[in-house]
């Protein structure tokens, strides 16, 4: 080891502009938790409006004129909820935080391949976040054309949209830097003996995810530039000739196409949904293998399925556009690819289910969240199938059914996996396990209420209630029969918020808890390198005393004849 390792660092270079992947991971984690909470709060406010239209909102009503959200404000909140949750919450959490913290440790690397870029990636992310939040305070409020920002609406929307686009440029740049780094790290810095076939599935998931980010984000960046040109330079990339706005023909050259945006947007955004789910699958797989004390069933097929999933995710995007009047041939093509892409998801899910079979399952909090992930993601995936077929999608498109579908995959899906991961790796970071009792309270109430929020959406959606209605559908006759669910869903959402309080208490209580002695470096009796070969947590500068050498696969649990029920990857 070089002598630099031991020299004292200033507070700023250690904690603020840190280049240590572990600390950057923690920075990412804390920032994205704050954004997740913020995005969730926006939604809790919106749900008041849906449950009790035309009444003053409690607690936060004073911030708004008349104490209520105007329809424009409602749209703003909705657009920003989506943007914040996806681009500022979940992606930075699963890639920025989990990827950064765990990938180098799991592959036995001293750090990321490019520590300076890693730092830059966090700071561009934060800048993007600040820009997005700032947009709430400009005239006309934040962006209000949906997280999808479809033109022509987005082209002629208020200033908030311009800021949204600038914010996105930062977020995209940050993702690109981060994912480049992860790919190079995995390819170049694997420990000796850690062949591709011995990588923990989590690392594979990060690898595929990073490729998705590198290749899918740039077309959206291109589209963002075009939309900025439309808004700032008066071009007509997305504006057709003779567009009428407010009864008058818009004074632009025209000749553009709103569909162009949809293509470029979904070319990113479908792979993006797999960016949201693949790392979550990785987290869940690690936890399930560890807590069933069994090897993952069908490791090779899971890895293959995730690569296949990543590949296919680039050629399904137009299933978001079935009602744009596409030709039969195109529609056929995209329906087929969509049906094909559900196969690898099923393979992964089935393999995880089969892994449970005959295991000596330990029902600790991380495992509970991981177990709940399986059926919840299953519901999300299965409800996607009718959306992937044009005849059914034509009825379901833009209804609450779609909202139900994707929230099942991202909320009780990915968010649960994130919680599982936080409970699981918390002792790695702090040396202390989170409290199990509070953890279980957090889990069971979250599980109940989250279903209370999203299950009725299928009912409303099947009845034809549209998404993005500021009054929740009161003005539509066909919605009348299912409107009573609005109050139920809103109640569930607020209770879901309350159910997060035990987590927050647990989080701070554990951090400030004093424990004597040296922390157990491997409290879950795990096989992978991050638990077995590092110095005790909390880790200082530098990951390993001696560079680890790997001798076996990642999941050697309950091997017959072994002295313990797990054999570390680095054991000869």
């Amino acid at each position, binding site marked *: *080891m*070089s002598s*630099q*390792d031991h020299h004292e660092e200033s507070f700023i270079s250690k904690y603020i502009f840190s280049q*240590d992947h572990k600390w950057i991971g923690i920075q990412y984690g804390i920032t994205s938790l704050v954004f997740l909470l913020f995005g969730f709060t926006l939604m809790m406010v919106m749900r008041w409006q849906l449950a009790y239209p035309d009444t003053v909102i409690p607690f936060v009503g004073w911030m708004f004129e008349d104490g209520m959200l105007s329809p424009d404000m409602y749209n703003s909140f909705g657009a920003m909820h989506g943007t914040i949750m996806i681009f500022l919450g979940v992606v930075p959490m699963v890639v920025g935080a989990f990827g950064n913290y765990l990938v180098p440790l799991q592959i036995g690397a*001293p*750090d990321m*391949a*490019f*520590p300076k870029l890693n730092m830059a990636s966090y700071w561009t992310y934060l800048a993007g976040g600040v820009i997005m939040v700032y947009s709430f305070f400009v005239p006309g409020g934040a962006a209000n054309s949906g997280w999808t920002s479809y033109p022509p609406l987005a082209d002629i929307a208020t200033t908030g949209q311009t800021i949204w686009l600038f914010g996105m440029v930062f977020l995209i740049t940050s993702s*690109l830097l981060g994912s*480049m*780094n992860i*790919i*190079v790290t995995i*390819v*170049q*810095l694997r420990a000796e003996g850690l062949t591709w076939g011995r990588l923990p599935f989590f690392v594979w998931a990060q690898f595929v995810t990073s490729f998705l980010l*590198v*290749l*899918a*984000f*740039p*077309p*959206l*960046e*291109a*589209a963002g*530039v*075009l939309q900025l*040109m439309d808004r700032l*330079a*008066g*071009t*007509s*990339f997305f504006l057709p000739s003779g567009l009428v706005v407010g009864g008058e023909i818009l004074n*632009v*050259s025209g*000749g*553009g*196409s709103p*569909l*162009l945006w949809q*293509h*470029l947007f979904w*070319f990113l955004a479908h792979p993006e949904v797999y960016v949201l789910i693949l790392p979550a699958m990785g987290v869940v797989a690690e936890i399930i293998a560890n807590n069933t004390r069994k090897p993952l069933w069908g490791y090779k097929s899971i890895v293959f399925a995730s690569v296949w999933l990543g590949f296919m995710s680039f050629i399904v995007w137009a299933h978001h556009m079935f009602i744009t009047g596409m030709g039969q041939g195109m529609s056929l093509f995209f329906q087929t690819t969509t049906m094909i892409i559900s196969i690898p998801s099923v393979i992964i899910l089935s393999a995880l289910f089969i892994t449970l079979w005959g295991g000596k399952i330990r029902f600790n909090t991380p495992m509970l969240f991981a177990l709940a992930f399986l059926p919840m993601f299953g519901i999300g995936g299965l409800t996607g199938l009718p959306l992937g077929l044009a005849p059914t999608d034509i009825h379901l498109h833009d209804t609450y059914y779609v909202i139900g579908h994707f929230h099942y995959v991202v909320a009780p899906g990915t968010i649960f996996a994130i919680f599982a991961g936080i409970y699981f790796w918390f002792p790695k970071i702090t040396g202390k396990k989170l409290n199990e009792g509070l953890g279980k309270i957090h889990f069971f109430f979250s599980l109940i209420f989250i279903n209370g929020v999203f299950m009725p959406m299928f009912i409303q959606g099947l009845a034809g209630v549209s998404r993005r209605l500021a009054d929740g559908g009161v003005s539509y006759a066909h919605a009348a029969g299912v409107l009573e669910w609005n109050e139920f869903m809103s109640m569930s959402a607020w209770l879901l918020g309350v159910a997060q309080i035990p987590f927050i208490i647990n989080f701070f209580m554990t951090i400030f808890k004093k424990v004597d002695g040296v922390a157990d470096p491997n409290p879950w009796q795990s096989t992978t390198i991050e638990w077995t070969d590092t110095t005790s947590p909390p880790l200082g*500068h*530098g990951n390993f005393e001696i560079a680890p050498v790997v001798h076996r696969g990642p999941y050697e649990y309950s091997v017959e004849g072994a002295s313990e029920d797990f054999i570390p990857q680095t054991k000869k």
Partner: protein
Amino acid sequence: MQIPYNEELRPDTGLYNAKLGIWIFLASEIMLFGGLFSAYIMLRVGAPVWPPLGTAQLNIPMATFNTVVLITSSVTMVMAWASLKMNNFGKFKMYMGLTLLFSAMFLVVKYFEYSAKLSHGFTPAHDTFLAIYYTMTGLHVIHIIAGMIVNGYLWMPGSKMWKSNPERFTNRIEVAGLYWHFVDLVWIFLFPSLYLL
């Protein structure tokens, strides 16, 4: 913290880190320009006539000159790298300087092209052809400027590394070169797509 494979090659991949890094970055750049070319094609096939009636006539001689300039700068760039490989730091300085000179020349010509068009009222808002013309060439110009900043750094202050760590410095020049050739390559496609066809 010493990160391995910054100068030496990793045996099983045969690469040093930055080499893989730059190629992945270029892959993302390919997709960025891919998105723009896709937009170009969509506007073009969707238009009744292309280029639209009444649009500006772009200046082919100027663009041809610029193509020559940019290709030349690519050659000097690769020669700069080859000079380092042959241990000739003086020649490296000369070729890198030439590369910067040619890049600046490209920008000057581009400036005259833009201002000639703008002064006649041919703004991006005029029609979709000009819109995509300004956007694509503008983004390309930003890439040129970014490349000049990197090359300028490696030419002057950054070249100190040649003394302390020649291996790594040569790698840096190779990586900067890969980026620069890519920028050249994009122009090779932009030139016919926007000016000639």
